[in-house]
């Protein structure tokens, strides 16, 4: 696939052109961005089809249907070692390409409507398509370095877009927070990259056996031990995972993601729900061989265990917090965090297929939810607090329907919704996990919470009677159409991942998909598991409905749950004090520093004061007066000295050309003399 690079290149070029456009050229810029991305979509379709039919061909001849085509080129050479970049096309990449381009395109179209009133329209689309290009770059890159570059561009665009309304201080702060927090993870990521390069001498993933993810290199990495009883493979895996943690907001670096909701809603949908945060998951999936290095059949490795626990705990943690939020987008943000936790856990427990499947389905229904939320906000005049909404069902029927679909998918309502199948796969693999049942219970609890808070939100927003100030209105067609499409996929996507026909799994794991039919449900424990999860979900929904359904509490009166268990509620509402914790540490540091300064003040200057008092024996007024003069005088003297020194230095730079020329000539003379003497001597 020589032309694969076009897929990311097109949007990037488009953004370049848009960057040059004038502000009033709104239609043109939007058109450019959308056109570029739709071309990319077509190309991705082509790539996808290509992968599929090569698989079919290989299967037909009974080979192992592993499709992987790479195109590599040397980027730079220093000494004997070269750094190669390149792109790869394999099922993983193909699926991801499809998802990113498709969801991205829908969201582009959506934002045409959503941003219609913003005067920085062109800038928005410039950033947006730059982001899309970088993200696609991450997806197709076959070299850890290239991936890292695109990864950073993605981070940058995320920063730019979160701070898109930089005139809002909160937005600016959120942007900074996001950037710095993710950077924190990226440091470890970079360390991992460097280490990997040092060990294997290549950053390519796949390169006819010479790549860093291929058995040869992996074996070599396994041999080399690192600290804490880890092999180099494991350590590098963990470092890279740290980058993923930063990017996809896992515990403990999740703090930036909820704040990122300051950005425009399409951005939240595209970047902080569907694609970018998924990049972390994708990264882990991409370097999965590193993670599983040296795993025994049925066993697990340190890295996988870590990933699993981090993922599971994040899932529950975030879900807990989401229960007690009142900002519609914040709820979704926390649910995103928890779903990302699910994906990570899925990766850790059941392998690439499980995690990626949830990633894909989640991308669709979460984008759907966000856009729905956006449409709600848009329709109810920029109102974001769920307690001031309610009864929107009547005003925005379309939005309500699609939102409901999304919500049910997220909760994982059985059979009909894609979320069910993907989450069920995760639960199943968690159940099968040999290294303990802890994650399983966590995840089940998480599912319960998910169902609960989604119900709470929906009933707050759509049921009851309207508590808003003025009547909401349905959003324009250009916004609802993408919603409808997304809704369709939120339902339909489940088909490719049912245990009955695990096409997706086999597609990613390079095995043949055989249509098991209903007998495949007879697998021991599977049915009971599905039953259990459905029970849990229904229980969660029921609970939520019981507490919030069709009631319309006033904004000021305490939440239903708050009445029940106030302390827990407060803790949850304050996001379990994570931010406070982080803040506290830093503030403590500041206090300490202040105390040091204070000490200096007392001892040093105070001592001088005392000395003067003792010397002149004047009374306090005069004393303080002298002291001031004395201190200030000291300061002034010091400043004078400093500036004097600077002036001394600066005198060399007399702006007289002739000085310079003179020095030049002098240098020439000396050089020539030296040359001659050396030649004579």
């Amino acid at each position, binding site marked *: 696939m020589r032309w694969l690079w076009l897929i990311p290149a097109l949007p990037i070029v488009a953004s370049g052109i848009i960057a040059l456009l004038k502000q009033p050229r709104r239609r043109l810029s939007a058109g450019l961005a959308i056109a570029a991305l739709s071309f990319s979509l077509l190309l991705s379709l082509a790539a996808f089809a290509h992968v599929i039919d090569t698989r079919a061909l290989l299967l037909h001849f009974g080979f192992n249907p592993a499709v992987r085509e790479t195109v590599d080129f040397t980027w730079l050479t220093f000494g004997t070692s070269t750094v190669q970049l390149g792109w790869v096309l394999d099922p993983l990449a193909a699926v991801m390409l499809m998802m990113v381009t498709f969801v991205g395109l829908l969201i582009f179209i959506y934002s045409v409507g959503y941003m219609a009133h913003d005067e920085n329209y062109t800038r928005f689309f410039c950033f947006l398509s730059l982001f899309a290009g970088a993200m696609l770059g991450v997806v197709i890159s076959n070299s850890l370095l290239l991936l890292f570059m695109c990864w950073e561009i993605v981070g940058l665009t995320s920063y730019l877009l979160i701070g898109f309304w930089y005139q809002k201080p909160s937005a600016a702060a959120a942007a900074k927070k996001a950037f710095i927090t993710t950077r924190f993870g990226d440091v470890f990521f970079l360390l991992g990259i460097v280490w990997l390069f040092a060990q294997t001498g290549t950053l390519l993933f796949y390169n006819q056996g010479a790549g860093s993810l291929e058995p040869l290199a992996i074996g070599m990495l396994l041999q080399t031990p690192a600290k804490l009883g880890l092999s180099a493979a494991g350590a590098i895996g963990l470092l890279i995972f740290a980058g993923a943690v930063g990017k996809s907001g896992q515990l403990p670096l999740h703090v930036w993601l909820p704040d990122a909701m300051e950005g425009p809603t399409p951005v939240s949908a595209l970047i902080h729900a569907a694609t970018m945060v998924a990049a972390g998951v994708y990264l882990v999936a991409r370097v999965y061989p590193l993670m599983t290095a040296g795993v025994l059949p049925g066993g697990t490795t340190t890295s996988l265990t870590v990933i699993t626990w981090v993922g599971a705990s994040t899932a529950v943690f975030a879900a807990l917090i989401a229960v007690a939020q009142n900002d519609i987008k914040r709820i979704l943000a926390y649910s995103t965090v928890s779903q990302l936790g699910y994906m990570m856990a899925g990766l850790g427990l059941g392998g690439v297929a499980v995690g990626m499947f949830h990633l894909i389905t989640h991308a669709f229904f979460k984008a759907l939810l966000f856009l729905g939320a956006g449409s709600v906000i848009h329709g109810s005049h920029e109102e974001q607090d769920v307690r001031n909404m309610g009864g929107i069902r009547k005003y925005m029927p379309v939005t309500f329907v699609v939102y409901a679909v999304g919500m049910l998918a997220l909760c994982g309502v059985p059979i009909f919704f894609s979320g069910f199948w993907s989450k069920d796969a995760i639960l199943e693999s968690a159940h099968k996990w040999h290294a303990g049942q802890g994650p399983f219970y966590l995840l089940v609890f998480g599912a319960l919470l998910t169902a609960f808070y989604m119900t709470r939100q929906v009933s707050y927003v759509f049921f009851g009677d309207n508590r808003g100030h003025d009547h909401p209105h349905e959003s324009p067609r250009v916004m609802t159409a993408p919603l409808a499409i997304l809704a369709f996929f939120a339902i339909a996507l489940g088909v490719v991942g049912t245990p009955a026909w695990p096409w997706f799994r086999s597609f990613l794991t390079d095995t043949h998909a055989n249509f098991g039919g209903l007998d495949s449900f007879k697998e021991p424990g599977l049915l009971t598991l599905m039953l259990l999860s459905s029970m849990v979900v229904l229980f969660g929904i029921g609970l939520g409905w019981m507490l919030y359904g069709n009631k319309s509490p006033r904004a000021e009166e305490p939440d239903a749950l708050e009445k029940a268990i106030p302390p827990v509620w407060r803790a949850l509402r304050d996001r379990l004090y994570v931010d406070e914790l982080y803040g506290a540490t830093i503030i403590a540091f500041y206090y300490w520093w202040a105390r040091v300064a204070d000490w200096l003040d007392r001892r040093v200057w105070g001592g001088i004061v005392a000395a003067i008092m003792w010397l002149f024996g004047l009374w306090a007024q005069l004393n303080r007066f002298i002291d001031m003069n004395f201190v200030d005088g000291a300061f002034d003297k010091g400043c004078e000295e400093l500036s004097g020194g600077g002036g001394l230095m600066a005198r060399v730079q007399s702006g007289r050309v*002739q*000085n310079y020329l*003179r020095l030049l*000539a002098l240098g*020439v*003379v000396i050089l*020539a*003399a030296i040359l*001659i003497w050396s030649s*004579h001597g």
Partner: protein
Amino acid sequence: MTVVFWILAAVTVAGGLAAVMLKNTVHCALALTTAFAGLALLFMQLDAQFVGFAQILVYIGAVAILVVFAILLTRESEQPEKGVFSRTWLAGLAIAAAVFAVLAWAVLNSRAALPDAVGLPKPAPEVTVAQIGDALMGRYVLPLEILALLLTAAMIGAVLVAMHEKGGRK
């Protein structure tokens, strides 16, 4: 060493000296043209007709004119009240002398000064303009093109630099 050479050398050096020493700037420019002319003749003395003519055409025909234009445009033709030499003229002179000393010493100690060296007068190479043209269009075509580019750039740059600011700032 022919007499002609010495005469020309004298003319050139005298012109140069005058060019840097005279009080009146315009006189300096005119003396400079003398030096140029002397150099051109020296070139011809070295059987480099073409270079000599080019020298005359470019330096006397263009550069000298440019210089006098610049002088008149900057109204520097009347000498300033506080000497024409800069505050640090002595150091400058010393350095220049040092440079000359080094160069002369180098020349006199190099093989060029020894009678058996390459410096032996040999039959003048017969260089026709056609040959020069061939060389320019053949071996040296790339430098030629680059030069053309450079000259264009220089022209534009000079025009832009010397142009009056539009809209009369300050």
